[in-house]
């Protein structure tokens, strides 16, 4: 499995994602510059990492969606290849329309960084298949615009189609997200956007290993079906 981690100007969790894949899981991972127009041959999965692409100008993720690499990311997703957006990566996925809805400023109006419990809501995706349904994962959040917004029809649809991947535990919603949504899937279930950081929760030494299975699931999902 080869996983491409896209570096946008202002990305700052790209190294962390590469680290978990390469050093913790032994998966081949490499950084791809946002101005490239193609994913390297053999790419099987793509991660849009956390950070502040383009300094969050206009809206988080609003400018990154127009980076040259995004055409190739979209094509990869359309072929069914796994794409994971973490934090700013989720914001980019939502801005680019690969995921529905929109991101708003946290209801506290403040940046929030803390550990939260998120509940696994569906096992039907490459990212969540190695968890138990209802399992609580201990992971950190760190964001200012993490309040997921969806109009009522869309929320109903996400529920009906079992596309909510993770929910914050009741009473532990750090940003006011609709329906406690912490992560959601596209209709093809191969694109996941999530605000919490599983890459910061993949080593016991750092406080939790709960994020590891997500990367293991992603890395083995599409093995051999390279882009």
């Amino acid at each position, binding site marked *: 499995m080869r996983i491409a981690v896209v570096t946008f*100007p*202002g990305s*700052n*969790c790209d*190294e*962390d994602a*590469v*680290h*978990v894949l390469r*050093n*913790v899981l032994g998966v081949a991972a490499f950084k791809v510059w946002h101005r490239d127009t193609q994913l390297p041959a053999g790419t099987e999965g793509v991660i849009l990492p*956390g*950070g*502040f692409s*383009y*300094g*969050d*100008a206009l809206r988080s993720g609003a400018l990154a969606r127009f980076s040259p690499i995004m055409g190739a990311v979209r094509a990869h997703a359309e072929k069914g290849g796994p794409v994971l957006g973490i934090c700013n990566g989720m914001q980019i996925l939502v801005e680019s329309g690969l995921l529905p809805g929109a991101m708003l400023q946290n209801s506290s109006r*403040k*940046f*929030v*960084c*803390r550990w939260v419990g998120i509940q696994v809501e569906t096992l039907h995706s490459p990212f969540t298949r190695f968890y138990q349904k209802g399992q609580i994962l201990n992971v*950190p959040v*760190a964001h*200012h615009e993490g309040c997921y917004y969806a109009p009522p029809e869309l929320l109903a649809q996400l529920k009906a189609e079992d596309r909510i991947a993770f929910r914050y535990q009741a009473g532990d919603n750090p940003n006011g997200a609709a329906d406690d949504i912490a992560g959601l899937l596209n209709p093809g279930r191969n694109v996941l956007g999530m605000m919490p*950081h599983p*890459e*910061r929760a*993949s*080593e016991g*030494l*750092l406080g939790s290993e709960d994020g590891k299975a997500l990367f293991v699931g992603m890395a083995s999902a599409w093995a051999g079906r390279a882009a």
Partner: protein
Amino acid sequence: MSGVVDVKLARSHGLTESEYQHILDGLGRVPTLVELGILSVMWSEHCSYKSSRRHLKNLPTEAPWVLQGPGENAGVIDVGDGQAVAFKMESHNHPSFIEPYQGAATGVGGIMRDVFTMGARPIANLNSLRFGRLESPRMRFLLGGVVAGIGGYGNCMGVPTVGGEIAFDPSYDGNILVNAFTLGVLPSDRIFRSAAGAVGSPVVYVGSKTGRDGIHGATMASEEFGKESEEKRPRVQVGDPFTEKKLLEACLELMQEDVIVAIQDMGAAGLTSSSCEMASRGGKGIEIDVERVPRRETGMNAYEVMLSESQERMLMVVKDGTFERVRAIFEKWDLSVAVIGHITDTQRVVIKEAETVVADLPVGLIVDDAPSYDRPQQRPNLEARWTLPNLAPGGLGPRLLGLLARPTIASKRLVYEQYDSSVRAATIQGPGRADAAVVRLPDLNGAPSATQKKGVAMSADMNGRYCQLDPRRGALLGVLEAARNLACVGAEPKGLTDCLNFGNPEKPEVMWSFVECIHGLAEGCKALGVPVVSGNVSLYNETEGRAILPTPSVVMVGLIEDVTRTAPLGFADPGDRILLLGRLDRLGLGGSELVAMETAELLGRPAEPHLPEVLATHRAGIQLVRAGLVKSAHDVAEGGVLVALAESCVAGARRFGAEIDLPGQGELLARAFGEGASVIVISAAPERVAEVLAMAKGAGAEITEIGTVGGERLIWPGHLSVSVAELHDAWANGLGRALAAV
């Protein structure tokens, strides 16, 4: 601004008459306006350290592992296996008081530039903050703005803010303190410095474009605040962390190649100080054409370009013939890059505007001949405050709850949750979890590593009240507390950076306390064998003639050989035994939080530290944590041992009660709430207690078993019984309530 340079204009630039006369004598002519601007900022307190220079020499700066001591952008120490860490702390007090968000943000940006200028990738930020009374809406606004600004910049940079300290005292009502610290990692054989290289080498400008930001900001930072400071608002710079993140990546990318000869951050006094310092450190001259400086605004003159404090800019000297490589990397990151001059052998700083020379100054006059003052000192009548008040006896429970709710002691979660503390996947002990922050070192390339065993620990400390009551002892106690905090996570102290915040040095009593504090810092560092490798001085922290408490903030950096062996501050399991390392009877109520709470006054003399005992306690703490024998370690600081015990009960991942019996026969309040050096609360599994006792005694430390973890209450039979819920509520919500109360 009038173009006629005379003594009046010099005074408006913050120069004294005798300093201006010194310029006239040195030059043999009247300086040009640009020259006056350059000399006034270079001779300002902020850049020249004219009141402090001679006293800073008393600090110990050497140790075999010091690779770079004071004098560069940051200090560097060797941590073994080819790695080194660079770190420094710097103040941004005055700008933060005027515009808290931008002031704090640019402070954080500036200190990170200082660190990556050395070739180091920043991996941890800390800060040391002081605010006045939260009853004032203005103070709440300042706190909110500073915290948001620190987060806004550090979070965007992807550098975790892993710790720090905040204290509140009325003396900071008119002058808050914002001291920012950054630590970075670099290969020990690839340190970048700022001394200019070979004659003819191109001088390259990189980063943001230059605008009219903060012109004369460096001078402002050295002036006492007066009523007119509101008018200085346009002088405050605006930070752009997105550009700095790109600048960081571009600089580190270029540093992989053999291109850079010298590099210097354009911080306070911008292009002026960076060019003068490069020339001075290299024993060379420099020639700059301001027409070639990339600009954001039109119509800027040479004076403005030289004095602009636009952020996120660097000056480099590169090897001849390498500029195209520099250009390629900086253009890739969408940053400005331009050759704006070259190094000369004239030992003069020459500034041109196209073909016109607008300044031509000897480097020696700017740097070596900068004024240095031996300002008069006067010892105040300290003894007048050394008598402790009579406090009503008893009442331990309400007093404990009152102390836990004090903003200085209460949980700072409301603050640190606004900082990204876990980016870079290396934070082992983040804010609020242990006595010192612990971060795993990255690999040699600065990337996170899963096999790296080593870590660094950092702790920011200083108690201004102690320093006001007894400056020398107070500063010493601050240094010892930092080392004690490191001991609690098993770290061996290796280096220290300081930020000396004081009032107006032209007042003899302020100057005396400044000098005494330096002696106290030196005494502590020498006792611990810890060198001071970098630092910063911030004077004139006064408003309307009222000075802040003397606050020589320090951050001590320690090394951990095995990051799987650290200790949190919270108790871990019921049934664990609680022990005290060190002697409780060495502590006292002088300058304590209890006295401040009950009398709203500064009274008493801080307890004297007994250095051999202190060192034995630290040694025992480090050994016990490293051996994995203790499950928690927490130092006794503000609020004394009961506060420390209460925090161990409620600040951990799970909450517990405890039953204890404090040793000694002394006055009850002093035993319960006394402060000073050298006591640490630890906990251990009952079956390991014998080993703990033996190891502590082997290290020469006093150790006493005082109780057991468990239950729903903190109980000292006959004296105290408070529920865990009450303790937690007071501690967890104290700061929030202080902010909400109007």
